[in-house]
Structures are given as C-alpha cells and as structure tokens.
C-alpha cells in the first residue's frame, strides 16, 4: 500500500435520535458504498439515551460499517480514539485479508496463530503510516448544551493523538444543526490541528437533530477532498488552513 492511500471516516457524536431531514441510516449506507466508515458515539450523562436513540445509533454504525458505543461524558475522549484506531485497523485488515485471499487463498483467521501475529504487525505499521481523513459531526441540538465543553475537549484530544502519527492526518468538524435555517455547518475544514477558539465560538446548542443531513455533509467534504488530494500532495507538508 502506498503512502498516499487514505482512510476516510466520519465520527458522529450525538445524544439522541434524528428528527430533521433524511434518514441517517440510509446516509450511512451511502457513505459505506463510497468507502467511508461511519462511527457513532452516543453521549449520556444522567439516565439513558432511550431505546430509540440507542437503536438508531447502532443502526447508523452497522450501515456505515463502523462501531457504536454509548458512553458517559468522562469516557468520550478515550472512546473516540479507541474507535478511530480500531476501525482503521478493521479497514486495513480488510485490505490485507483481500491480499491474503488472492495470494494464498486464506483469510487471516484461517492462518495459524503465529503467522497471524506477523500479519498483524504489518497491519499495525500500515495503520501508523496510512493517511487519515476524519470528519467529526457534532450534535449541537438543545439537549447537548451541558456536554459541549466535553465534546470540544474530546475533539481537541483526538487531534492531538492523530498529529503525532507518521502518516498525514486531517480532521474537519461540522455541527448539526447549523445557523438559522441551515441543517449543518462547517466549523472547521480539514486541518491537522483543532482551532479551539473556533470551536468555542461556533458550537452553540440549539434546535433539533438533523443527523442524516450531517452525514451527507461529511460525505461531500470527504469526496471534495479526494478531488484535490493529487494537488495537495505536490505541496510540501500538510495543508494548513489557518495561521
């Protein structure tokens, strides 16, 4: 696999279920068809997300080929990182599996455990070196008000982890709902750092939960990027969108 190979992910952080716009599960399936993994974290503080929210979160992740976890705010940060890491590994394992199948006619699970261990060391190295683009889609509906400071810190923390990888990593952030009538808004375009002041200013809790449109928006950001990747690769170093 070449260095330019990219893994693309969407991370949805929400505390309820969608109530505006298109079906988020269909949007997640669409993402998966485009080779984008969708992960979902449900954040609950007191009580629960409710059965509807929980089921929806699980279904979005299933449709998007990703993982779903329901966590308390304290665990948000660690969970975001664990999921990014594990789903990157899953994606790479799929790639490696395909190669193993074509070369040896065996999947990783069919190999003797000692050989498996060698394969995993390769996967691990690939994970560190592969390019990664993540769109974090943050639910900023009214119910998220108290959780927004935690979410903000978690996003910053995720970027800190990704920054030190050997491969390039870029994080974009969108919020749903957006301003006024908009169902989503771009908080920060792809960058290797998170602009905390920007996040603070633009993550204001209000309104409903357009999860579907948010996933749609994230897909379009990732697709757009694919068009300019070739151009970006000729510049030296990663793109920096702000000073």
């Amino acid at each position, binding site marked *: 696999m070449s260095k330019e190979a990219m893994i693309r992910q969407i991370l949805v952080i929400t505390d309820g279920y969608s109530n505006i716009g298109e079906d988020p599960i269909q949007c997640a399936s669409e993402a998966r068809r485009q080779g984008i993994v969708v992960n979902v974290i449900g954040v609950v503080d007191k009580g629960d997300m409710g059965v509807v929210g929980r089921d929806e979160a699980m279904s979005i992740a299933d449709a998007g080929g990703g993982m779903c976890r329901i966590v308390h705010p304290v665990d948000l940060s660690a969970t975001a990182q664990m999921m990014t890491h594990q789903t990157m590994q899953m994606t790479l394992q799929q790639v490696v599996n395909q190669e193993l199948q074509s070369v040896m006619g065996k999947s990783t699970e069919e190999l003797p455990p*000692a050989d498996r*261990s*060698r394969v995993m060391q390769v996967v691990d190295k690939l994970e560190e070196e592969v390019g990664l683009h993540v769109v974090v889609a943050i639910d900023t509906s009214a119910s998220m008000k108290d959780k927004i400071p935690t979410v903000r810190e978690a996003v910053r*923390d995720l970027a800190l982890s990704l920054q*030190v990888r050997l491969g390039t990593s870029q994080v974009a952030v969108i919020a749903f709902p957006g301003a006024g009538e908009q169902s989503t808004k771009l908080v920060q375009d792809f960058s290797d750092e998170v602009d905390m002041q920007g996040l603070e200013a633009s993550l204001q809790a209000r309104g409903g939960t357009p999860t579907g449109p948010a996933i749609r928006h994230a897909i379009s950001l990732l697709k757009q990027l694919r068009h300019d990747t070739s151009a970006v690769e000729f510049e030296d170093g990663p793109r920096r969108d702000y000073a």
Partner: protein
Amino acid sequence: MTQGVHPRLTKGSKVLGKWTRQQWVVQGALGVGANGAVYAVRGADHQRYAMKVCEDAGAVAFEWGLLEQLSAHGFAFPKPHCIDDSAAHPSLYFYVMELVDGQPLDVVWPRLDAAGVKRILLATAYALRHLHKSSHAFCDIKPQNLLVNLHENQCVRFVDVGGVTPFGRSVRQFTPTSDVAFWGLGERRASARYDIAALALMVATLCETPPKTLSQWPLERRQAWMLRTIRGLRQKRLSTLLEDAVYGRINHADELIHRVYDLPADRRPVVAKAHRQAAATGAVASGSTALGQQKRKSQPRRPGKSTAGRADWTERLMWYALTCAMISTAGAWAEYLR
C-alpha cells in the same frame, strides 16, 4: 461491528485449542479490560496460567507478538506460553501466559507508607529501564496495569501489553489522567520520557483523586490542579521528582532510578492527613482547600493565575494569615519535613 459482548467463560469451562489440541480448565475471571477478558486457567501440566480471551483474532495475535518480542527484554511482562483458537467456541481467540501473582496498585496504594512507595517506584523504574532498552514504551501506565506483590523481590509486574509502542510512534492506548498530552504537558508520542511522565502523573492522581469534571476543564485549569497536587505532597523530594517528570525533564529511566533512590523511606504516608481528607471528600482544590498543602512550603507562593480574580482579597488575607502562622510554626514544619 457494534457493542462487543465478550464470550463469558465460567469456572469449570473447558477450552480446547484448535491448533495445539491442549485443554485448559477455567478457574475464574482475573479481569475484564477494553480489549477482552483474562481468566485464570489450569493446563494439562496442572500448572496455573492466565488466559487472555478476545473475539478479535487480530488483537490477540498482535498482543501475542509483542509479548514474545518483549520476553527477551526483562521479566516485567508475563512470560508468554502459547497462542491458540478455541476448537469449540466460535470466534474465541486466546493466548496463554504466566499467571502474575499480585494486586493492582490502586488496591495496595492506600496502605502504603513512604518506604513502600519508594520500593514500588524503584521496581517500576527498573522494569521501565529494561523495557526501554528494547526501544519500546509501556504507554498505558495505570494502577490496574501494575500488579504489586511486596513479598517478591521484583515487586511490580506489568500486565496488558496492548499499549506497548515502539519509540517515536503515536501512543494509541493510554489512560487520560496518566497521559501528558491530556494535561497539555507534552506530546502523545512513545518515548522513555512519556512513560516516566505517565508514572508521575499516575502517582499524583493516586495521591489525590481528580475531580470528575476534569475532562471538561481547559488545559490551564487542569495543569494548575496537577501542579497543586504535586506540590502539596508531604515529601518535598517526591514533589520535585514528580514535577520534573511531568514537565518532561526526566528523559531516561536511569535518571529516574537515581532520583527514586534519593527519596526518604520513612513509615509515614506520602500524602499529609488534611490532604487525604480533601481527596476523600472529592473536594476540588481551589484557594481554600489548597491551604493544607501550601502551608507545607518553606516559601509562601502566590497561587496560580487561574485562581486569581474575584477571590483575590480573601486569598491575600489567607496568605497573610498563613505567613504569620508559618513564622511561628516554621520550626515545627522544618522538623516534620525532615
């Protein structure tokens, strides 16, 4: 893949290896972590072992590879025994390793005196030195991953090899309160310095439980909390050691060992009584709760900028009162600090 359910093995369950045809009898659960469950098992040789079980074949194989690699470098981690898949259970992958006899550090900690803390720090520092010689960092340093047995010569053992990372690479498994990047004090990149800082952060958070809302706080406030906790310890030498470590000023386990040897080994706890009570009630140290700690300093210090502002005049009054109190009790404190 959604919320993972671990295959629950119960006491008496038998696991037959698909590749080695060895049979293991489960004796009980040792612990459940983020990646899987660990069981005490008995092998055909009647010896007891620990078995790590996971649904993810890749994760098991990866950890196994690390354990094997590290077994050539010191004895901190459990000795690897064998890796296999269950012949009967679907997607039950496992490896078998040495059963480490010991209690997690957080269980032992409340009973430790300064001498005990010194012994444990020293053992950990030596174990880290061995590990670092192989150019790997432990990374996920937390009380649950350090098993302590004070009756053994090597009284601290490491479990959970999953976080071990070659120097220079990004850290993927860590515990926020032991992570320098979480505190805004350094990079999340594997190095000897990262581990040494993680150890110091862990000790600080064992001495005082961090407030629940910590992860919502901005970096400056987190740092102020950490610094106050460290500087509030009864043992001055331990304070400066921890402070140097969390600020990344200790780059090598040899230096850490050197510094730990210098610690006093008396029979008193490293945390002063007032401090422990504050920690027990979960009080967030701010101007007033920091009192007990600040008093112990030989020089009165101005509190951090973050506590300035509205509480300013009350604080100034307290500092004044403290300075007066200190002059009269300086002799007593000098004795206490020895």
